[in-house]
């Protein structure tokens, strides 16, 4: 007995043929911060209480960070001392904290880390924040107008 079994598989199915392309997208590191302020950068000392207690300015500056890597945001002064006036006033009479924080940290030309975070847009948690500053020179300096530069730095990690 001889039989021939012919199995024809798939002939009834539609045939298909394919080809591909291989697009690529190159994305560099992006860091971007928007700084805004709704308060004056001038802190006037006009009463005895100002000298006794110092002056605190809430939400002195506000920041919105956009970054596609983990990041660190720092502050430092551009000079060790204030300029102007007739006294030498160190940067450290000004303290800074994240808005609502407990302690003020004295400023200097040394980098102070204010905040760090992960990648994301301004809507990401922790990417929008503000700082409070407190100036407390006491009675140690001559009257006058003194100024100092604040340098903010956003660094991708």
């Amino acid at each position, binding site marked *: 007995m001889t039989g021939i079994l012919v*199995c024809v598989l798939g002939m009834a199915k539609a045939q298909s043929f394919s080809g591909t392309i291989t*697009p690529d997208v190159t994305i560099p590191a992006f860091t971007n911060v928007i700084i805004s302020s709704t308060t004056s950068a001038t802190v006037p000392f006009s009463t005895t209480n100002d000298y006794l207690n110092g002056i605190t300015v809430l939400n002195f500056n506000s920041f919105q960070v956009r970054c596609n890597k983990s990041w660190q945001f720092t502050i430092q002064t551009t000079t060790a001392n204030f300029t102007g006036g007739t006294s030498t006033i160190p940067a450290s009479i000004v303290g800074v904290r994240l808005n609502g924080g407990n302690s003020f940290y004295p400023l200097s030309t040394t980098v102070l880390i204010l905040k760090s975070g992960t990648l994301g847009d301004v809507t990401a948690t922790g990417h929008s924040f503000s700082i409070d500053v407190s100036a407390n020179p006491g009675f140690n300096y001559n009257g006058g107008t003194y100024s100092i530069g604040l340098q903010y730095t956003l660094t991708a990690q």
Partner: protein
Amino acid sequence: MKAFVTCSFFLLIVFAGNGQDKSNKITVTESNCSFNISTIANLLAGQSTANAFSFQVLSKANSYHVYVKGANSTGTTTPIPPNKLGVQVTSRTGAAATYNSSKILLSTVDQALVTNGSSTSTGATFSCTLFLEPLDFSYVPGVYNFVVTFTMTQP
């Protein structure tokens, strides 16, 4: 006396091949399928490249269709999904075929680009624009590699 029965079977299995041949194939040709994002504005606005690629179809059969699909990118820790890429057929030369001239955002399932193409031995060629949709800051720096697959089917 014992009867011996010899059983012989010839087994012939024919598979319908998916391999391309001279008369039935799709050939995809890249011209420029790279996006190099240099500014935040580029990142947020998206980009497009006209005539980024083309594909040519040879088909013995009438009523062929061409589909496209994508996949998540590879190469980084934060894959870009396929729907951030789009393709648009902008023109056809050669044998008649109906094509979707709208921008199609890719997905992992096939979407029709060409329908009811006429049989052709000389080919129908379709030119395409490649789109990169607006991105955001959730993608780490790096090179993101995609594979976009075009499939021609015959009835």
